[in-house]
């Protein structure tokens, strides 16, 4: 029965508008003045009641940003962004922070209900006994709306809250780790983020604690001409474990919107962080009008011995994606993993991949990247594996496969390998193919339509990555893959 329901929903999604999250919430919002200057930064900082050190930090970042040039090495093309034409802060109007869900604007609640994000503390599969639970931090433009399950997490000692709250309640932790993985002037977009970041999640898992539930943040861009600059900081102390999920959507608009986030992960001795992303920002229409510019810096620092970080991403949205979740493998025996599916259709452009920096001995990394291009889109895998002189016994395995659907799309693979240790072993494989006529014919001869056949084969192509996602998200991601490729054949 469940399968039938599933099919009905998929078909309904396919029949209707392709991008199901494209609605706008009509809500009274408060903005900073348009453009970027030190006053705007002071305004954001004041809105968040920030201490002086953080304001100074932001202002210093702004100073550095002015001296930087926008990078142009990625294989993406877009008109120059006018940074003075954006709003850097937008928030739903509210007198005081909501004490409970009852205080939250019903318009907002309706928005999240429509997006299928549980803001009530409920099991993910409502009504199913023993199904896993998710704590959610919902971010709407520049502010966090609500964070669920906080009390239960606190019992385990886990801190999960909006970053602005963490700055207030745990200033020492924030000060110690903020910017320690992605330095302020790491790159143009990270630097911009450091100056104007508005919201994001903060997670701290104390030593020896296995986080009792999945944590997730849901990012929603709503306001017009607004950039979203969230900043996420996750610290897994010695011997701890946490799994974190991130989802993103935005309304359909004809203008491009900027999303420049920074994510920093710190894993101490024997700690493990699993970070999964289902990115479904509005990709723009078939002619390439509108859509999100997704310029994100994500980096994990495996500081401790035997620490482990695993990145899993399903990238189906955004007009332009520029994103390289990376691992610095510093601790002896630490390991990094990167599993990625990047799907581009229409006029989308994606330049994404990872960096695995092997600094410590016996560090291991594994990269599985699957790119699918359709329509007039272009998808690039760009990755670096670097083995430093002290990384004796380091191992890397990389596999990147690209699938092309149609005559007008493009797929590129640009792996960089730098080896400086004679006791390291690095392997890289890449292939580019198209959907095989024979496989399509076979599947269609079994009674599937062409569209269904393509979906089936594509799902087979990306299976290795989907398997890495938590179960409920794998189901969602699978549907997303189907919807993203709708209309790409025939």
């Amino acid at each position: 029965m469940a399968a039938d329901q599933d099919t009905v929903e998929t078909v309904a999604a396919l029949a209707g508008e392709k991008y199901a999250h494209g609605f706008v919430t009509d809500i009274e919002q408060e903005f900073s003045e348009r453009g970027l200057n030190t006053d705007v930064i002071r305004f954001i900082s004041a809105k968040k009641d920030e201490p002086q050190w953080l304001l100074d930090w932001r202002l210093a970042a702004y100073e550095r940003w002015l001296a930087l040039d926008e990078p142009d090495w990625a294989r993406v093309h877009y008109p120059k962004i006018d940074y003075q034409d954006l709003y850097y802060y937008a928030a739903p109007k509210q007198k005081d922070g909501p004490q409970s869900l009852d205080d939250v604007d019903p318009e907002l609640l309706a928005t999240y209900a429509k997006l299928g994000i549980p803001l009530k503390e409920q099991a993910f599969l409502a009504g199913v006994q023993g199904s896993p639970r998710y704590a959610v931090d919902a971010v709407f433009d520049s502010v966090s709306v609500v964070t669920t399950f906080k009390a239960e997490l606190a019992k385990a000692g886990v801190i999960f809250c909006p970053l602005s709250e963490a700055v207030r309640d745990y200033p020492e932790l924030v000060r110690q780790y903020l910017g320690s993985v992605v330095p302020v002037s790491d790159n143009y977009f990270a630097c911009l983020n450091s100056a104007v970041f508005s919201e994001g999640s903060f997670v701290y898992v104390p030593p020896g604690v296995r986080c009792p539930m999945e944590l997730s943040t849901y990012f929603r861009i709503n306001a017009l001409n607004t950039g979203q600059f969230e900043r996420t900081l996750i610290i897994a102390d010695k011997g701890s474990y946490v799994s974190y999920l991130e989802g993103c959507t935005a309304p359909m608009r004809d203008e491009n919107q900027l999303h420049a986030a920074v994510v920093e992960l710190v894993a101490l001795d024997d700690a493990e962080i699993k970070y999964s992303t289902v990115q479904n920002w509005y990709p723009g229409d078939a002619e390439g009008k509108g859509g999100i510019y997704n310029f994100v810096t994500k980096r994990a620092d495996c500081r401790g011995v035997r620490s482990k970080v695993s990145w899993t991403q399903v990238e189906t949205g955004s007009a332009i994606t520029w994103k390289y979740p990376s691992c610095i493998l510093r601790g002896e025996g630490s390991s990094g993993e990167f599993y990625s599916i990047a799907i581009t259709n229409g006029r989308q452009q994606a330049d994404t991949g990872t960096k695995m920096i092997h600094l410590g001995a016996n560090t291991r990394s594994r990269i599985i990247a699957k790119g699918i291009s359709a329509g007039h889109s272009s998808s690039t895998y760009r990755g670096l594996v670097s083995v430093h002189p002290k990384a004796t016994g380091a191992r890397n395995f990389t596999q990147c496969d690209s699938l092309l659907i149609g005559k007008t799309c493009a797929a590129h693979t640009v792996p960089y390998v730098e080896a400086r240790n004679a006791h390291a072993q690095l392997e890289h494989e890449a292939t580019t193919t198209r959907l095989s006529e024979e496989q399509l014919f076979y599947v269609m001869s079994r009674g599937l339509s062409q569209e269904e056949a393509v979906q089936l084969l594509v799902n087979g192509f990306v299976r290795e990555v989907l398997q890495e996602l938590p179960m409920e998200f794998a189901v969602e991601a699978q549907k997303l893959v189907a919807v993203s490729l709708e209309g790409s054949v025939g």
Partner: protein
Amino acid sequence: MTGLRDALLSRDETRLPGRRDEDWRWTDLRGTLRPLPAVSDAVQPLAAFDEPEGVQVRRFAAPVTAGTFDASLSVAAGETLWLLDRVDAGAGAYARDLALDITLGEGATLHRLVLAADSADAVSVTRAMVSLAPGATFHQTVLATGGKRQRIETAVAHPGAGARARLDGAYLLADGRHSDQTTILDHQGPGGTSEQLIRGVAADQARGVFQGRITVAVGADGTDARLKHNALLLSDRAEIDAKPELEIYADDVACAHGNTVGTLDAEVLFYAMSRGIPEVEARLMLVEAFVGEIVERIGPAPLQDAARAFVADQLEALRR
């Protein structure tokens, strides 16, 4: 793309390509020529060399200070040519920019062996622009021993249409030498095949670089392009940098690249030593076998012999 030549001729050091240029990130010529040497036609004397029979030999003498050289060659439709390009070493610090044009007519076949030797202090760039007509076959093997900075670049304009290209190469580097093999294989029309196998060994503080870009243009369907680079690091102070790239704009293609970096297999080494072979010899044997595969792929016997002799000389350098 003509950074070294531009810098030498304009006497403008800032035109030298450096690590900030994407295509030169691991072959930084900045600061290697200070001051820029004067360009002249004066060349160093050629060393004795037994020219193999049945092969057209071109020798490129090293300049005394700095030199830019051009040469072109074409193989007429239906003809077959065996070609040996010997880039001679010379002594001391010199700068050389060598630009070669090669054209293959319809159905023509060219077997080209490049023996690139340079002095330890040389800054040397060799660029070959190869253009293939339909049905042409181009087989190339580049053997390089490095310099202060050595780059051997081959760009192939591939029309598809049954033409075939094979770009093989090997680098054997010791001391502080650097060598860069860069290939650009541009599949412009439907029905082309290409294949590349590059093997490299870096000992001491040497640095081996391989960059291979395969592009498949819109409409170049049915292209089959494969590339493989395998490298061995023989020392913790040596470095291997590699970037195999695929840039694909057609959907009906089969393209693949593979890249591995590792070291000699400890078990095999142990086995050889347990049979009474000293470690140095055992290592050389394994390196010889590793690079030997490249030599064995060379079709014409005289070219294969010349390649084998060149490799044998270089293995001696690794022994020290």
